[in-house]
């Protein structure tokens, strides 16, 4: 009898776990959201159909993503499941090879999506999607280009839909520290360099730079080099660099690496000295801004970094950012470096198609905008829903760009962009010459062909 009872309890517990209602974070009909687009969604009925989504987000981002997907589930009746992994890049390929891919996968790197498309693991998006992106996204054509890959038979098609964008060309600082020391926000790269020298001359340390990221150690330096590339060379050179039409050990690239070295390889410019750059974790690195007296005054990092600021930091007052300026005398406009996640269909189904369609509705963007850490180039959204004004300011950086380029290391083949480029940058900050490092990276690129 007792056994029977326990079995019963266990069974009840199991079924209860499965039946959890999808909670909507913002009640439909309230606030500045485009609820029309949500109502329109109800025309698609997918009752009982399961749509699986596999992505790189864990923790708070996962909750945000699930909050967005809940609206899709609620409106269409589909059973949407999101699974996140911190080794997404490895897992997605294994799943695809094994034939157990999710319906929709969220790639943090277009390069990987291109690989998958070439091997035939991705389904081209519905006709007209490319036109939609071109018409509705700011700098639409560049997003279409970034999502267009060659299929297994070599024909190009739109495979990837960009949703959730990061801006990388940002320098973070503490307004109070700048005020106390009487520093101004630099308007050009010349001024930024002068400010760096000024801070060092005043006995402070201008920069906190950390490249440590566990198995991915080195990637923050690639952002620096890409930003420097866009500020010293025209965007066409950047594009050629990313596609290896100009070699990695070209003087243009070496110049950009050395521009980064100007900041990172000077013991006086970096908190802890140049030797600690490679081993400092990128998540710990910005904390130097907040210590008293400040260990450093500036930190170059993408829009996501406030997540690693000390608890209770109010972005906009306690900490703020400015646009990483371009050289005044180089006439290259206002280049902005960014990144984003690209959604692709890894296992076709009506549900997967409907989900991509859902991403084209303003509500899909606005729900996440109203939460945290989301920027979008979608022009039709109501930017009033941004939860804090900083994000709006970042979106302005995105919109104010004369040139937008995607994170180059994410576009390079994995073995370079997520391999030898990282290692090379670690070696460079460790003291190897830029020429030597660039030649090694080029060699690994050659080896891939």
């Amino acid at each position, binding site marked *: 009898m007792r056994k029977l009872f326990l079995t019963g309890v266990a069974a009840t517990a199991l079924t209860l776990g499965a039946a959890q209602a999808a909670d909507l974070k913002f009640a439909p009909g309230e606030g500045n959201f485009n609820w029309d687009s949500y109502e329109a969604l109800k025309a698609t009925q997918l009752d009982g159909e399961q749509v699986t989504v596999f992505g790189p987000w864990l923790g708070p981002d996962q909750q945000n993503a699930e909050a967005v997907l809940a609206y899709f589930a609620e409106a269409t009746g589909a059973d949407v499941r999101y699974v996140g992994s911190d080794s997404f*890049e490895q897992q997605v390929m294994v799943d695809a090879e094994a034939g157990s891919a999710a319906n929709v996968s969220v790639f943090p790197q277009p390069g990987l999506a291109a690989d998958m498309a070439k091997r035939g693991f991705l389904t081209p998006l519905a006709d007209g999607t490319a036109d939609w992106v071109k018409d509705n996204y700011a700098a639409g054509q560049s997003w279409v280009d970034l999502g267009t890959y060659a299929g297994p038979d070599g024909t190009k098609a739109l495979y990837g839909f960009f949703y959730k964008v990061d801006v990388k060309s940002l320098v973070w600082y503490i307004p109070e520290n700048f005020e106390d020391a009487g520093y101004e926000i630099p308007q050009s790269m010349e001024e930024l360099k002068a400010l760096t020298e000024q801070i060092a001359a005043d006995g402070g340390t201008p920069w906190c730079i950390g490249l440590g990221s566990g*198995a991915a150690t080195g990637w923050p330096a690639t952002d620096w080099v890409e930003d420097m590339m866009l500020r010293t060379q025209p965007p066409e050179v950047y594009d050629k660099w990313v596609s290896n039409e100009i070699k990695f050990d070209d003087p243009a690239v070496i110049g950009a690496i050395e521009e980064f070295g100007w900041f990172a390889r000077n013991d006086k410019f970096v908190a802890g000295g140049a030797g600690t750059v490679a081993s400092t974790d990128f998540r710990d690195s910005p904390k130097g801004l907040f210590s008293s007296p400040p260990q450093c005054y500036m930190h170059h990092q993408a829009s996501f970094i406030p997540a690693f600021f000390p608890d209770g930091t109010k972005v906009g007052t306690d900490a703020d950012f400015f646009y990483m300026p371009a050289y005044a005398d180089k006439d290259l406009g206002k280049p902005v470096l960014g990144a984003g996640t690209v959604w692709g269909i890894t296992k076709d189904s009506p549900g997967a198609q409907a989900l991509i369609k859902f991403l084209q509705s303003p509500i899909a963007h606005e729900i996440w905008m109203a939460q945290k850490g989301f920027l979008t180039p979608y022009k039709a959204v109501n930017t009033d829903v941004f939860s804090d004004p900083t994000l709006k300011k970042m979106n302005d950086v995105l919109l104010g760009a004369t040139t937008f380029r995607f994170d180059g290391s994410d576009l390079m083949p994995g*073995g370079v962009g997520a391999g030898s480029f990282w290692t090379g940058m670690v070696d460079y900050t460790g003291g190897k010459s830029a020429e030597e490092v660039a030649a090694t990276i080029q060699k690994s690129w050659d080896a891939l062909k």
Partner: protein
Amino acid sequence: MHPALQGLITIIIGVGGCVGYFYFSNQFLDRILYPATGKNAGRNINRANQVRPWLFLAPALLALGLYLAYPVFATLWLSVTDRNAGGAFVGLANYRQMFDEPKFWEAVSNNMLWLIIVPAFSTAFGLLAAQLTDRIKWGNIAKSLIFMPMAISFVGAAVIWKLVYDTRPADQDQIGVLNAVWLGFDGGPMSVLILKIIPALILVIFAGFLAYSVIQIARSLLRGGFSHSATPWWGLVLRAGLALVAVWLVWVSLRSVVSLATVSLPYGEPQTWLTIPFWNSILLMVVLVWIQTGFAMVILSAALRGVPEETIEAAVIDGANPFQIFFKIKVPQIMGTIVVVWTTITIVVLKVFDIVFAMTNGQWETQVLANYMYDKLFRANDWGVGSASAMIIMLLVTPILVWNVINARKEMR
């Protein structure tokens, strides 16, 4: 369906399936195929008994083939094909590409270092700990403390040691133990004693010990090598090889003594330990030695207890000192176990991945083969080269594995 419920059902089907398989295959064999009745009853029983073991083994053989043999051949096939070209056969191109990469050779040479250092130190420390803890009252407590790291996963150990090696900028408090210790040195007499004289002494003793064993090997080679030796020719080759390695190590350690005397150490500056080439590999090895010492200690301690009291008593009566008893009576008697422990750790070392992955990911010249393979397979998505390096690791492991099995069987006899 809830995953736990799915799991439960899977367990029921799995266990039930096994029981059912054995029951019904027995039934089939005894009732239908070779019934133990009628005029052929005797012959049928014999036949059924011949077939039965194979019938029972079949699922296991099938599973082993599927899970062990098939992957080996699949990897071999992948290593000679190019996935990007639709799986076309490319011969040894992947291997050639791999051999051209400096990172691969870095991994190989690092692996060699790991192979020399980790098993040697783990076994030596394990033996020392086993011998010392057998005598003292709180030996069991000491043993459990030494054994404890075995219970921690490699990644867990890596995280712990990463904190030990942690570095903060000079003007902050150090949270890494090693840097805290390092900053205690100031270049005074104590620093010279601890950082220069003592290591130099250790190196000289190490070199002396090696030189002694070289002489021993050389002597035994000269004495018994060419005549009626019981050892086969490959044993001689192995010994000669060991002697050469030892000579090289003597040279290396003597050279290190010289450089130790002349080097000027950066006192007062926190060091980023994991970025100093060569030494960072050593620091990673320390982690594995820390883990494996407990394993060596437990096995060797059991072996030491197996040494018959009579031989030791006889030695005591003959006037042997404790060192002679240990090195001339005990160690030779447990040599077989030492070899098994050594080779077992060697295999662990060849597969070492987690520690390097979690602490440096092969950067700053700490790459090892297993991590190189992972890099190629999953980061570069280069299945060809990744599989090729997997084959290299397997080639290196197989002889040691075979030798280990042979030795273990010898021990059991």
